[in-house]
């Protein structure tokens, strides 16, 4: 896995890229709150909420296939919840598609609602991460007063996840180059156990070295960093437009848009 997988498109230049990271983060948080505020049986009313992420993807020059692939990648996490919903909620609900009316169990509506909310939420997150370099996103979190520890942990995760993955790949290469493919399953499994253990120990050792390196440069529990965020009038305009759009989606319903 390469860092470009996460960073891809975030270094681009588009109107969405140029927006202040704080504004984009606040907009995505507001969008998510509105998204999850809908009742579990509501599906059609979510339709207007698809406009924003798709429009932002388009303006941000991020291919829709890329965003949808990410959604698909994370689908298994939500699939179980969706599949189990029809089993738990068997109460009948009346659904109308224009002139057609039919009765379905509440579980299916819930499953559909969860799937749609999950997809839209992830699309919004993808827009945010694909149009904002991660360091700026971390700074935006700090400025918006998200818990310092959480922001710091996210920073370390971003910094070291690739180091860890590279280390795991090197260990695996070392194993494979010594004929692991020809080894019996039991020995292969035992090697995997050893690899995980070795990786775990190396990770702990590395974390200790990093902490010493931080302390060596005067770290005393309070993270400091330089600010690179600048708010412009267009950012305020974007935030106001997002507010109007979300209010319209939540309280005025689909009729306003379609």
């Amino acid at each position, binding site marked *: 896995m390469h860092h470009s997988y996460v960073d891809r498109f975030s270094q681009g230049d588009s109107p969405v890229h140029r927006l202040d990271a704080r504004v984009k983060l606040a907009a995505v948080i507001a969008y998510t709150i509105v998204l999850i505020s809908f009742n579990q049986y509501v599906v059609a009313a979510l339709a207007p909420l698809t406009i924003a992420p798709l429009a932002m993807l388009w303006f941000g020059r991020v291919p829709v296939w890329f965003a949808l692939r990410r959604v698909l990648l994370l689908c298994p996490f939500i699939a179980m919840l969706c599949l189990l919903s029809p089993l738990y909620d068997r109460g009948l609900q009346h659904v109308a598609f224009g002139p057609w009316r039919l009765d379905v169990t509440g579980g299916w509506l819930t499953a559909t609602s969860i799937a749609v909310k999950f997809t839209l939420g992830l699309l919004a997150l993808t827009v945010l991460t694909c149009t904002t370099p991660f360091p700026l996103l*971390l700074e935006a979190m700090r400025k918006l007063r998200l818990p310092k520890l959480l922001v710091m942990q996210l920073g*370390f995760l971003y*910094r070291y996840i690739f180091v860890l993955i590279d280390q795991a790949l090197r260990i695996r290469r070392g194993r494979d180059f010594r004929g692991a493919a020809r080894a019996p399953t039991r020995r292969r499994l035992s090697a995997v156990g050893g690899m995980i253990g070795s990786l775990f120990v190396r990770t702990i050792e590395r974390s200790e070295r990093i902490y010493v390196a931080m302390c060596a*440069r005067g770290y005393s529990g309070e993270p*400091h960093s*330089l600010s690179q965020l600048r708010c412009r009038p267009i950012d305020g305009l974007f935030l106001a437009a997002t507010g109007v759009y979300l209010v319209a989606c939540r309280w005025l319903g689909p009729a306003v848009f379609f």
Partner: protein
Amino acid sequence: MSEILKIEDMFVSYSDGTKALQGVRLAVQRGQRVGLIGPNGAGKTSLLLAIMRGVPFTGRVVVDGVELSRRTTDKVRSRCGMTFQDPDDQLFMPTLLDDVAFGPLNQGCHADIAETRAREVIAVVGLSGLENRCAHHLSGGQKRNATLATILSMEIKLLLLDEPGANLDARSRRRLIDILRLRDEAMLLATHDLGMVAELCQRVIVLDGGHVVVDDTCDVLNDSALLARYGLM
């Protein structure tokens, strides 16, 4: 010339029973550049870490007149800068600029001054234009120079360099030597690169099995028998 670093009877043991340092005594004068050489496992890294109180030790360490203890750790660390063998251990901030400014900000510098100083030092180590890059977007040599920048941006009096020339190509190594030669700070340079020690240092300390076995001028680097005895050639 007064002493910037004084170590007396330093012992370092690890939990697995390894005795990394056994009664080390040494002193470094202000502005003096000292090469710390020895075979693998001789205790070079442990010595540097102990000076920063990165590993538990017994004995006495005095840095710039301040005796190292739990209470004075921050004060001592604010006077020393250490680079690590693995640059990935040292570059932990989201961007290079943030990383280089991390030390000055922790020393209480105003953000503008820290940024200016960070940009200057980044230019000195030849990484201009990469300020907003993340560490994982830098090459091995660039990371190595970046680690040096992270401590050169601080106001310190003692540089502790652990294998600063490892994995550097000839041009980068030459640049590193030129940068270090211009520094006024005292320096303890742990390395296997005897050429670098000969070019930079006025004095050489050889560690073997946790003991200081040689403490002399750089002329000892011409003594093939001695170098062979301690596995240095």
